[in-house]
């Protein structure tokens, strides 16, 4: 027989650490059905017949967030054999609120009081016996961070699960509420799962929409219930939802008075408060935030002696994937004596394509490591606190700033960093806009045109950065007015957890997970697309015969480029440069650096091209006027990101439709902006002439302005949780 123990607790209660300790590496990570909430389960160490089901970190079992909904659905529908409820001993009052709700469900519960070492250090005491007696459950203490007491907690839970020992349910509510609850229980008996009769009664008392729908009582019974609820409300002079919440907390206050002794005065400053006096200080907060971001950026992506991310990635790109791996494959393929096309496929297609992406793994690991540390320490919620005011205007959350900053280095970890944003809507808009930020790989494109057409003016790079930021801001404003992303700004009622030392185990695990995600994608999406592009580049039809071609100009890719280049005609890509620009844009999907390299081959430059391609500046300048060059640059900065980033978008959206919508939005936005710039600015330089496209560009500009300034008709609709 298999037993299931649900692990429940508040965010920041140490639940993840405990879960990792209980299950070790024996974990399975998936998704709760229908929502983008991570689902983790694992086999309890030493008990192959016991599965630990990790529930999302929640404050309550109310019906509003997807996390709360999946948790309560699991608890009610999947009948776990026991619940292991972890609470933060240093913050026990609010943590017990969830406990009182878990108790309504009537599962056997073990209450694990975590961070007991900190409780003692503060000079406080928690009397577990009194606590257990008052709450009617077994209590254990533990320090998940120090690895103390967790076996005992697990053993207790296993014992309860196997014997199904229920505690005595405490009397949380007062007489008139209990009276109403008794009437409700009586009316719904036989219509709901008998094990959860009391839970259903309480939810119906609270007028919980979802439970009402689920139970589906006839109107006569509903009227009867409503009468008892309103009677009670009149008596208590409050609404049902408040009555329940108030009484839960009143009950907890009583329990705490009995079982917990605090040493410090009520408003004494804790260490965390002292740190926050500086970190979230009115004047220092933003400079400190800028420094933290800069340091993170510098360590992972900068070019300083301490930039370990860059050093490792350079090594991976130049040595590992530049010499060793190609050398190895070269040796294997040559000694096998494979045919030329297979050699080309493996070396130029797979090794070069996948290697180009895998070379970024070290940088991504370093970034993930730093992000995980910031998250684990508790700094992320401070960031949200500091930056919320600005970002909320653009439909983003305070935490969106981190993905944006990281994306200036590489969009992939940037998009992955959006995972720390709890609100689904904010997260989606962040994922949809992060790709606009000019990443490191887009810089060579900027360098090429700045050098070839604009006399190396630094204004070009600066403007590229501002276009990226403006695209994020404008898109945020546009997107938040669409129905599927609209609604009131999500409630920003956020706990600022006490700072604590990062758990090495958690940080290592989170870093490994992100790194592995990236590698996994590089070996699937990127592998496939590299093969396809290699094929299109290396074969062509010459004199009606399909054959391998050395010259890119006569390859299938060039044919496709020529066939579809007209699409970009309104952007000013015309004449002979049109198909070259089209092909370069497509190869940019593998990695944006490819754009410059492609121009190199298309303009027949035989030697090794430097990063910004100054060898072909003269040729580029002949083909590209300034406005045309700028239009090309804008389109490539804003259109669909590289395959690796598209993969990251898919990973965070968990949904093909949203991924497609993101890519489509980015391409359309890029197209519109490039066209507006070319058609309108081109009039002044003579590159464009007044015509149908000028009018179209004006219409597009008006449309863009309309989308930005239009009234948000869904502003007041409550954000619906789609489960």
């Amino acid at each position, binding site marked *: 027989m298999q037993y299931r123990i649900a692990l429940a607790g508040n965010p920041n209660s140490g639940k993840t650490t405990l879960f990792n300790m209980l299950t070790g590496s024996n974990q399975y990570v998936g998704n709760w059905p229908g929502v983008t909430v991570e689902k983790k389960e694992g086999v309890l160490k030493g008990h192959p017949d016991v599965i630990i089901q990790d529930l999302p970190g929640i*404050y*309550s079992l*109310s019906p*509003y*967030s997807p996390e709360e909904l999946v948790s309560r659905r699991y608890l009610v529908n999947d009948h776990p054999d026991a619940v292991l409820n972890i609470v933060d001993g240093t*913050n026990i*009052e*609010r943590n017990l*609120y969830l406990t009182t709700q878990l108790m309504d469900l009537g599962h056997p519960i073990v209450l694990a009081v975590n961070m007991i070492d900190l409780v003692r250090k503060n000079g406080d005491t928690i009397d577990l016996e009194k606590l257990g007696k008052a709450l009617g459950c077994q209590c254990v203490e533990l320090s998940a961070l120090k690895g103390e007491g967790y076996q005992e907690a697990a053993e207790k839970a296993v014992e309860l699960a196997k014997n199904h020992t229920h505690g005595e349910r405490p009397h949380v509510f007062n007489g008139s509420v209990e009276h109403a609850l008794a009437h409700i229980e009586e009316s719904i008996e036989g219509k709901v799962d008998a094990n959860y009769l009391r839970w259903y009664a309480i939810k119906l008392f609270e007028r919980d929409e979802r439970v009402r729908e689920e139970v589906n009582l006839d109107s006569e019974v509903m009227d009867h219930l409503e009468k008892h609820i309103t009677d009670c409300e009149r008596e208590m002079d*409050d609404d049902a*939802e*408040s009555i329940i*919440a*108030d009484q839960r*907390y009143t009950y907890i206050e009583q329990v705490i008075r009995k079982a917990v002794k605090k040493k410090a005065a009520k*408003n004494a400053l804790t260490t*965390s*408060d002292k740190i*926050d006096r500086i970190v*979230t*200080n*009115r*004047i220092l*907060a*933003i400079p400190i935030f800028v420094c933290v971001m800069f340091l993170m950026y510098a360590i992972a992506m900068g070019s300083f002696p301490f930039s370990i991310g860059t050093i490792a990635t350079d090594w991976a790109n130049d040595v590992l994937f530049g010499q060793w791996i190609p050398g190895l494959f070269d040796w294997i393929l040559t000694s096998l004596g494979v045919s030329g096309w297979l050699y080309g496929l493996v070396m130029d297609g797979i090794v070069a394509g996948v290697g180009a992406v895998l070379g970024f793994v070290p940088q991504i690991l370093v970034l993930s490591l730093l992000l995980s540390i910031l998250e684990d320490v508790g700094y992320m*919620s401070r960031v*949200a*606190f*500091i*930056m*919320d*005011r*600005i970002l909320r205007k653009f439909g983003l959350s305070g935490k969106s700033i981190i993905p944006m900053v990281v994306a200036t280095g590489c969009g992939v970890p940037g998009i992955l960093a959006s995972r720390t944003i709890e609100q689904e809507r904010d997260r989606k808009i962040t994922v949809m806009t992060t790709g606009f930020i000019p990443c490191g790989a887009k810089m060579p494109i900027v360098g090429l045109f700045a050098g070839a057409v604009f006399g190396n003016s630094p204004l070009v790079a600066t403007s590229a950065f501002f276009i990226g930021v403006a695209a994020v801001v404008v898109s945020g404003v546009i997107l938040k007015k669409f129905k599927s992303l609209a609604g*009131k*700004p999500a*409630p*920003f*009622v*956020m*706990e*600022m*957890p*006490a700072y604590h030392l990062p758990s090495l185990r958690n940080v290592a695990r989170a870093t490994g997970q992100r790194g592995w995600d990236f590698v996994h994608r590089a070996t699937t999406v990127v592998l496939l697309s590299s093969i396809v592009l290699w094929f299109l580049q290396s074969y062509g039809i010459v004199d009606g015969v399909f054959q391998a071609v050395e010259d890119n100009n006569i390859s299938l890719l060039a044919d496709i480029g020529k066939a579809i280049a007209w699409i970009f005609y309104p952007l000013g890509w015309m004449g002979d440069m049109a198909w070259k620009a089209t092909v370069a844009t497509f190869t940019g999907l593998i990695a944006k650096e490819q754009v410059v390299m492609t121009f190199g081959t298309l303009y027949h430059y035989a030697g090794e091209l430097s990063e910004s391609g100054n060898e072909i500046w003269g040729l580029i300048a002949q083909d590209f006027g300034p406005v045309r060059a700028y239009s090309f640059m804008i389109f490539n900065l804003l259109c669909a990101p590289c395959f690796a980033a598209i993969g990251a978008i898919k990973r965070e959206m968990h949904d093909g439709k949203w991924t497609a919508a993101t890519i489509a939005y980015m391409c359309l936005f890029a197209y519109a902006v490039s066209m507006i710039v070319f058609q309108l600015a081109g009039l002044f330089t003579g590159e464009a002439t007044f015509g149908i496209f000028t009018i179209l560009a004006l219409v597009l500009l008006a449309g863009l302005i309309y989308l930005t300034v239009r009234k948000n008709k869904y502003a007041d609709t*409550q*954000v619906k949780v789609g489960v």
Partner: protein
Amino acid sequence: MKTLKDAKIGQTVVVAKVWGEGAVRRRIMDMGITKNVEVFVRKVAPLGDPIEVNVRGYELSLRKADAEMIEVYE
């Protein structure tokens, strides 16, 4: 009606009632801001919003728009 939004930094106020409706209101109550609880206003964010308060022994931040729904007295 005095609300938490009007309370000064460093002030301790007592909650009289949580107004509003739906998810935000429930969330505020779930986080421990219920009738008769003492709330200490710790600080305001550098850009003037949100605010940080201490309630039931922990730190909570909430936007002024949400704090406006919380009726308090001194």
